[in-house]
């Protein structure tokens, strides 16, 4: 055995402790646990009876397109022309270059690549509209659009974006000023009408399968518009409102996320295009720091310096005098 193994270490009060050789008292753990179980049960029932729980109904493509057909159409055109947030997101949805967040060379989103492939023009607009039967005008418009050159398509979609910026909603129906947007007007009007019937929700969710529990496509489409985020803003749920901590209404939310959301409010994270990755990195370091606190001199001395323990163990210290 090496001499080092037998050499005693210096006693450090923030790391080491003298074994207890003093008195013991009877302690009934199972009874304590049982009483605690009943007490927490009563507390939970009381809180549930008094306050219940929130259940704000979900937004659908149907409810969105009926409530705000203009916003829906303004979003739909960006899905068709590939300028929406999802269309330009990058991995894991598509391979848009220079779109992943990074810290220096560390760019994990890019490294992991595209695993939830989404082509917004095809997946959100063209393929759903192709499922509609008995719509020869619409099908002809889709054929004309898809057979046109990229330059022609861009010319049409740009013209439509300009026109739909001045669109209005007349009794729930979309009215877009005329313009040189070719077949795109018919396409987006049909998309809006399909959404308003509920057909788009079903088509985007099912993806050609009967059973599906993956809501990626309808959720991403809804989140690209302003309707969902406006509802969230009204409930103080947006990032800049410390929303990560909050719940709808006056319910308590996730107070334990206070530190995570705090970093989003301070520079440089609050305006950085890499803010999410930066906040993650900070929280990983802090979590590791908390796990390894017993090894960190200074921090592990705070309990001894603050002397709160004198209150906790006051009966013990009195018994020593």
């Amino acid at each position, binding site marked *: 055995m090496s001499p080092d193994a037998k050499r005693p270490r210096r006693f450090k009060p923030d790391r080491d402790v003298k074994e207890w050789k003093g008195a013991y008292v009877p302690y009934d753990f199972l009874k304590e646990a049982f009483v605690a179980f009943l007490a927490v049960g009563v507390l939970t029932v009381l809180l549930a009876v008094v306050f219940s729980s929130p259940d704000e109904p979900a937004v659908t493509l149907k409810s969105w397109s009926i409530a705000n057909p203009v916003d829906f159409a303004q979003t739909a055109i960006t899905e068709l022309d590939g300028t929406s947030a999802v269309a330009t997101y990058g991995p894991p949805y598509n391979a848009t270059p220079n779109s992943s967040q990074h810290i220096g060379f560390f760019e994990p989103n890019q490294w992991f*690549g595209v695993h939830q492939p989404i082509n917004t023009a095809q997946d959100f607009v063209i393929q759903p509209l192709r499922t509609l039967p008995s719509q020869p005008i619409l099908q002809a418009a889709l054929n004309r659009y898809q057979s046109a050159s990229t330059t022609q398509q861009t010319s049409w979609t740009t013209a439509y974006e300009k026109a739909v910026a001045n669109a209005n909603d007349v009794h729930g129906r979309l009215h877009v000023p005329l313009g040189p947007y070719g077949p795109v007007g018919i396409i987006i009007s049909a998309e809006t009408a399909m959404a308003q019937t509920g057909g788009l929700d079903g088509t985007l969710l099912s993806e050609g399968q009967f059973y599906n529990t993956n809501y990626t496509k309808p959720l991403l489409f809804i989140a690209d518009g302003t309707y969902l985020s406006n509802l969230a803003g009204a409930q103080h749920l947006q990032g800049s409102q410390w929303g990560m901590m909050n719940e709808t209404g006056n319910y308590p939310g996730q107070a334990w996320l206070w530190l995570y959301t705090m970093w989003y409010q301070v520079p440089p994270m609050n305006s950085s295009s890499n803010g*999410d990755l930066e906040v993650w990195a900070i929280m990983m370091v802090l979590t590791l720091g908390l796990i390894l606190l017993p090894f960190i001199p200074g921090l592990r001395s705070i309990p001894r310096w603050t002397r709160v323990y004198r209150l906790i163990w006051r009966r013990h210290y009195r018994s020593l005098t």
Partner: protein
Amino acid sequence: MSVDTGSHTDEPGAEESRQWTARARRAAESAFPPDRLLPDRQPAYMASWIYVFGVLTVVSLAWVIITGCVLAIMGPSWWHVSTAGHFVNSLHLWSVEAFFSFMVIHLWGKFFMAAWRGNRRLTWATGVISFAVSVGAAFTGYLSQQNFDSQWISTQAKDGINATGAGAVWNVLNFGQMLMWHIVLLPIAVVIIAGLHVLLVRRHGIVPPFADDERKSKETVAPPAEEPA
């Protein structure tokens, strides 16, 4: 007539048995003799209400799981269409709020006691890790609500998770995936880590108070030995 129970510890050579079963039993008996696993006494310095927050956290977790099981019996959509279901959902929500509140108070108490002292660093670490995993379990719960809240949370959280690359396989917009993480994988993880945490507390006992004399001791201490229960 005696019945052969299979435990032949009185037979010659039994102690040297190299069976996995015998070795596992000996290791468990050595680490957790019955009066250490379920002690009926505690050191006299355990005289503060702060000590009950560990067990309050554990029983709150029990209520979270029980109410979650009731929700599972009827399926994830039940609480939207049934008053009784909504009530059980409320029980689930408030038991989660109780769980996190008691756990954080427990953490504050253990911090101010410097409860990692005396080779209890792994106890501390498993406590922090079970907190972190619990946050993940609660997060997947919020995603499983199938309402506006889960729509907003998922479409926002996806940016943070995608930035780390985890979004390639862990898709918060995939309700089915998130529900299964919430009701299968993460509860198992929480229970295992919290269970290890409790076993470590039983193994090492609760941390003794700081010595009354706070000056840095010039004494030495022998390499750590077994602490009494």
